[in-house]
């Protein structure tokens, strides 16, 4: 790791929450407009964050607090791995560790509502993990590498040969962003429920930690989507933002569905689409090797 890498890592550490927070603010405005409301100001997530931090610390046990820290640090690690152009599979495994930490935090106190959420969080991971890992394999087949650095240097846009993979990743994105119809464990917006599954036992500064982690997570997932068009990179970013907008739209026009339905969609449609894409690319050569 040289000097510029360190600078970049520091910049990424500082910028990701800023971008993530703004995106969440946008989400809230857009959602409000779709529901015929005006909605909060763009900076509302940051106000919320500051307010949460200022509250006094309350917890039913120290376990959830420990795991909340694990959730944050591991997600940030995954984000740093991305920024430092490391291995996609490693990044996804670390992200899985982070996701499991959130569930374990909810498990670590004997609260029925938190436990419900934790089991559902695990089901969500069961649904999206295969999609994300297989998407990395599909990217590898085109670029010949799992390293983000090599993917960034790959000249042909991946979207042209891997469109079905992107569709599958969108399903995973929906689950990861806790958006309808996949907001099984707890919805991203608090407006749908009073008792929010895994977050039931979190409050104040610890809840702020989790919000912060969500911002990192959002930026990371959108970053992975932007890999589908890296030269020029702004196209990829526009694609990622359009996907984000699409998720917000879907969130507002669908209702939460059963976990068994989510699992079926993830394992059949999600995995199936990527497999179909791989077969097309590998065996029929329709991948337009430029």
């Amino acid at each position: 790791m040289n000097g510029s890498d360190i600078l970049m890592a520091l910049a990424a550490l500082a910028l990701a929450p800023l971008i993530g927070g703004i995106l969440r603010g946008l989400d809230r405005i857009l959602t409000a407009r779709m529901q015929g409301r005006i909605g909060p100001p763009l900076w509302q997530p940051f106000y919320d964050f500051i307010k949460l931090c200022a509250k006094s610390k309350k917890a039913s046990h120290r376990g959830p607090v420990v795991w909340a820290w694990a959730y944050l640090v591991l997600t940030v690690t995954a984000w740093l791995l991305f920024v430092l152009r490391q291995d996609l599979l490693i990044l996804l495994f670390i992200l899985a560790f982070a996701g499991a930490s959130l569930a374990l935090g909810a498990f670590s106190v004997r609260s029925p509502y938190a436990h419900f959420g934790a089991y559902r969080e695990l089901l969500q991971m069961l649904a999206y993990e295969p999609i994300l890992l297989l998407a990395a394999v599909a990217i590898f087949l085109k670029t010949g590498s799992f390293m983000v650095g090599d993917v960034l240097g790959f000249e042909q846009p991946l979207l042209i040969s891997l469109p079905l993979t992107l569709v599958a990743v969108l399903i995973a994105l929906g689950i990861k962003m806790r958006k309808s119809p996949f907001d099984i464990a707890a919805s991203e917006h608090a407006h749908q429920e009073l008792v929010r599954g895994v977050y039931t036992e979190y409050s104040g500064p610890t809840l702020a930690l989790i919000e912060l982690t969500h911002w990192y997570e959002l930026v990371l997932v959108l970053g992975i989507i932007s890999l589908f068009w890296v030269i020029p990179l702004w196209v990829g970013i526009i694609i990622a933002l359009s996907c984000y907008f699409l998720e917000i739209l879907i969130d507002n026009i669908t209702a939460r569905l059963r976990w068994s339905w989510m699992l079926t969609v993830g394992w059949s449609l999600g995995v199936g689409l990527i497999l179909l894409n791989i077969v097309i690319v590998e065996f029929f050569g329709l991948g337009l090797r430029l």
Partner: protein
Amino acid sequence: MTAETLVGVLVLLPFIVGGLSFLIRSEGLRKPFVIAFSLVMIIASLWLFLEVYNYGTLVSNPSPVWEYLIFAVDCLLIGYFLYVGITNKHYLIILLAAFQSVSFPLISLPFHKQVKPVLYIDLLSVIMCLVISLIGSLIVVFALDYMRNHEVHHRVNPSRQHIFFFFLISFLGAMNGLVFANSLFWLFLFWEITTLCCYHLIRHDLTEEALGASLRALWMNLAGAVALIIGIGLSLHNFDTVVIQELISSGVVGPALLLTLALFCFTGFTKAAQVPWQGWLLGAMVAPTPVSALLHSSTMVKAGVYLVLRLAPGFVETQLSAAIAIFGAFVFMVTSVLAIGQSNAKRVLAYSTIANLGLIICCAGINTGLAIAAAMVLIVFHAISKGLLFLVVGTIEQQVGSRDIEDMEGLITKLPVLSGIALVGMISMLFLPFGVVFGKWAGIQAASEPVTTWFFLIVAMLVMGSASTLVYYAKWMGRLISCAPDSSGSSEVKAPLAYGTLMALAVLAVGLSFLVVPLVVNVIDPAAVAVGYEEGFKVVGTALATPWGAFPVWPLFVAVVLALVIPALVVRLKPAEVSAVYMCGVNVDERHLVFRSAVDGHVQVETGGTYWTQWFDELSLNKWINAAGIVLLAVLFVGVVL
């Protein structure tokens, strides 16, 4: 001491010590004796490792007299199996043993060629030997404390420990012999001895369940041995050799050779309890815990994957290889899915073992340098973590009186040390900087390379299995760490030898993961090169790199320390910061989680685990899974012909 003496010690000493501990009936005498033996085994295996590491592959030709002895012992063993079948009126065992009693002399008596070399000990063999001798010995030491408690619990009088230790210790010798053998006759002998030891260890408690499980293990393993005999017969008939190294490096890969190798792999699958043979390993958990730990970690099932791995160079780039990879990936996926629906901790671990063995077999089938290295990494780390987890569950069972995950709720407050060790074991099976997942990562990287037409199916099954693994371990961890405010103080009984062993294994699991770079570069890669592959990994900076990926070990360790270790040490709640658990009603008694519900009654909160049995029900899924397993095994043999 010469290397050959060391080999003699590693193979014969366990039988001698086993026999002596059969004779020594006094526990007080047996204890120091067995501990000393374990130390000798560990030192001898390390020494042999260094010999082979420094001076290259060791070949050895013991005196031809041994051949007669081996023949005699083989006949005795087959006769004994026949006897077991007859006394238990188990017709399948009678049939299989009778077949062996006819076919074995038929193929071995006319064979008079000098076998050279009889023992072939390369790096792969000594890695296996280290795993067997180190982890196996630790488990034997653990058993010293465990078995005394076990007999107290079950009111066994007079003690039957001497029989137990005889088979437990001899097992190690048989396993060492198995991984050193280059002559198929020697391999067959040790194969049958492991079957015998396994049978006796499973039936040790003599309950009805134990007797049934032991007979099932016996017939399934005898079925595997039948395939082994047929394979040896084919090898003699077609190639006039019983030397493994000659067989796999003959250079001409034709259907005759592949059929022989397919039969041997089939034998390996039975021993590794792959679908549809998983029944015997699942049944084997009725045995005392050290047996499960031994069977699942360093011995028995590892013999099965060792055989497949040993033969892998013989079927590089064939349809057989692809079929084995698909089979292994399939087993990995389905057994991981089945484990989600299990609430019996030992059963969860058993499925996890079968899954990981499937992954190792899948890697052997992918059959590239990277895949073979990944398989070896998995063998080493899985043995440590799984041995640890079984011993932990056994200890929990002795202290809590149950092996059900539901009864482990909040164990972290009742048995903090033991639960802590259990968490370390599970995290080392499940999350990244640790060895098992590193092996899985390398396996997925190897599977992504389109070496066979069906690679995409293999990868898909691997990632789905991987996601399922996360679910069943995470929800088990969740039960362990679930804390109620009313939790009473710790009531842990810490037996020194048992806890010492657990600590040693936990330290080994974490420490070796930390040292994975030197381990892979100095041992695993050279071992893969020695059996004829190219290097799987290289070091780039501080990371361990494959041709298309990199695993930054130490940065990830720093991240995990920052994420988990430091918060766990630093975060403390002041009494004023503790609040009641939210119970969606008016809390009545916060310490005992009682609240006033809608109908005004007092309700005590209970939480339970979820197993989604409507989806992951073993009974309804098993017939499909077994059928698919049989079809895939059939494909294995059809693939040879094509």
